[in-house]
């Protein structure tokens, strides 16, 4: 189970982000009548945000993932975090001055591949303007002040011997064919999360959680239950390889 927990829980602690959005959020949260709407939008934003973090690291303390971390996103030139294998179009756009802000994020989320043709980030367009707004507001709010959002995974600790196990990628490739029935090989996420490119430790932690039934999807409990330590290690090393 993943749940979000802002570091500062104080009532009214949400600082207002810059610009238009700041104005909007402050206006909205200012009105009592609008309070319910804001709460709903926050909830929706948090809901949508969970999808982002199947690929993006939450902050610099989070384990490395396929996508760059989302903290300090606002005001950052596109494609500029060192060490990430960005799409060519993203790097170019960043060099030509594309900076992430409310407007550019809205355009990206509305039509990812129309906005940046050739973009590898595998997400579906968010058609509803109110959904995009909720997500961007949420991003702005949780990252604006008091440090990044802390994510708490309720996963049980992984035994050291499992973490230390060296996996055979060839075996992993064979085993992964079972995963690819549902988890798409090109990293597209549609009702089922993408697992391609997951960091080794993360994969092991999640599979271990399913195996001991600490996570509750029955398909995954059954699949993970049929995997021994050697199999989990093999899968982890195969899936973590770039290009898989």
């Amino acid at each position, binding site marked *: 189970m993943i749940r979000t927990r802002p570091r500062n829980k104080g009532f009214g602690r949400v600082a207002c982000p810059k610009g238009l959005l700041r104005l909007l959020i402050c206006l909205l949260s200012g009105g009592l009548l609008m309070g319910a709407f804001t709460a709903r939008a926050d909830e929706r934003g948090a809901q949508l945000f969970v999808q982002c973090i199947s690929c993006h690291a939450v902050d610099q303390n989070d384990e490395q993932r396929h996508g760059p971390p989302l903290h300090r996103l606002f005001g950052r030139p596109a494609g500029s975090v060192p060490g990430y294998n960005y799409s060519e179009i993203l790097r170019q756009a960043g060099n030509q001055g594309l900076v992430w802000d409310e407007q550019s994020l809205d355009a990206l989320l509305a039509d990812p591949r129309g906005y940046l043709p050739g973009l590898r980030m595998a997400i579906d367009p968010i058609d509803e303007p109110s959904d995009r707004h909720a997500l961007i507001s949420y991003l702005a709010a949780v990252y604006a002040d008091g440090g990044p959002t802390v994510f708490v995974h309720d996963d049980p600790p992984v035994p050291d011997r499992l973490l230390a196990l060296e996996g055979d990628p060839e075996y992993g490739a064979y085993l992964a064919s*079972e995963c690819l029935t549902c988890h798409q090989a090109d990293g597209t996420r549609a009702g089922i999360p993408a697992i391609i490119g997951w960091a080794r430790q993360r994969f092991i932690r999640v599979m271990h959680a399913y195996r001991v039934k600490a996570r509750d999807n029955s398909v995954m409990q059954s699949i993970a239950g049929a995997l021994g330590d050697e199999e989990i290690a093999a899968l982890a090393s195969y899936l973590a390889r770039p290009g898989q």
Partner: protein
Amino acid sequence: MINRRTFLGSAVGTSLAIGAPAVIGKSRPRVVIIGGGPGGATAARYLAKDSKGELDVTLIEPSRMYYTCFFSNLYLGGFQSFDQLGHSYRTLASQYGINVVHDWAVGVDTDKKSVSTASGARFGYDKLIVAPGIDFVEGSVPGWDASAQTRMPHAYKGGTQIALLKAQIENMRQGGTFLMLTPPNPYRCPPGPYERVSMVAHLLKSRNPSAKIIVLDPKSKFSKQALFEEGWSNHYQGMIEWLPVEIIGKVQRVDPQAMEIEVDGDTFKGDVINIIPAMKAGRIAEMAGVTNEAGWAPVHAADMRSRLQDDIYVLGDAAEQGDMPKSGFSANSQAKVCANAVRGALTGSKIFPARYSNTCWSLIDTDDGVKVGATYTPTDEKIATADSFISKTGEDAALRKKTYEESLGWYAGITKDIFG
């Protein structure tokens, strides 16, 4: 007599033989696959992909587009378009170099190790994979045969039959009766008929709310029964009547002209009638000599190898393997185990132990999805269930919606895994 043309011809031949000894001198091992469904197409794709050109892979499939049987009920219910069910073989041919032959396999010569097709072509094989799906048992429903399938569609092989059935239901008179005869065990997609009942009810609830659905069942119980019955009473109160074998006895006669089904002591009239006959392995499996008296093809659990013929493997619905249900998911799962074993046998690559799994999702009404599934291990006798799970009655709406969304994700995933 040597003229310029023959001289040129032989010169070209010689230079080729010298220039490319690996290709001409030693031909690649040949795998022929009959049937381009979830079993056959998956096997073809994994063999071609993983052997990186070391194997010559031929896929024989009559249709140019494959319309999945799985999710066809969602099309009946209006949750998927017909086009969304169709998948082409283009990527398998162009990207994976599979020789896709659109033809009917009509014979297998196990001595000469070759497959003949309706157009008269022959394809030699080192290993043959037979994945033809199902055919109906002739005479299993007295009075019904293939010539009656326009008036009384089976709609159980995907494609035009399912479109026909949908059109008939949409055009049914107000207050009419949809009558379904379900098949005896074993058959393709155990929850399929009951998901279909749900989807037909969903369609009728808005278009034809006074219509009735009657299910005549030659069995006493069915897959996910508690879940379906709960869903039917939640969503379609009073609309669906399920009559098991204890009530109807034996089907005596089906009359496509009168649109009637006669059972022991009673006759049912329908405005739309869906007949799903008893099933057996697709006919070509019988011609290949891999089927038993029951009409199915017994296989070894470790690699889906036929128990009756050397160098032939059988995948999917046609196989008699043990505990796995006949489903697209099962066929896809078996295909990967089989592809790994066949490639190992022909190229010396590592053969890993078999792993099988299956999940069957069913949609009962909008956002009300349920699932049943298992993982399996091979034993000497059969593919045996290791661990299984099923949705529970009384689950909350959010979980059911998630289960439905999961099924959409699965469809997108498995169709890419099958067709590339």
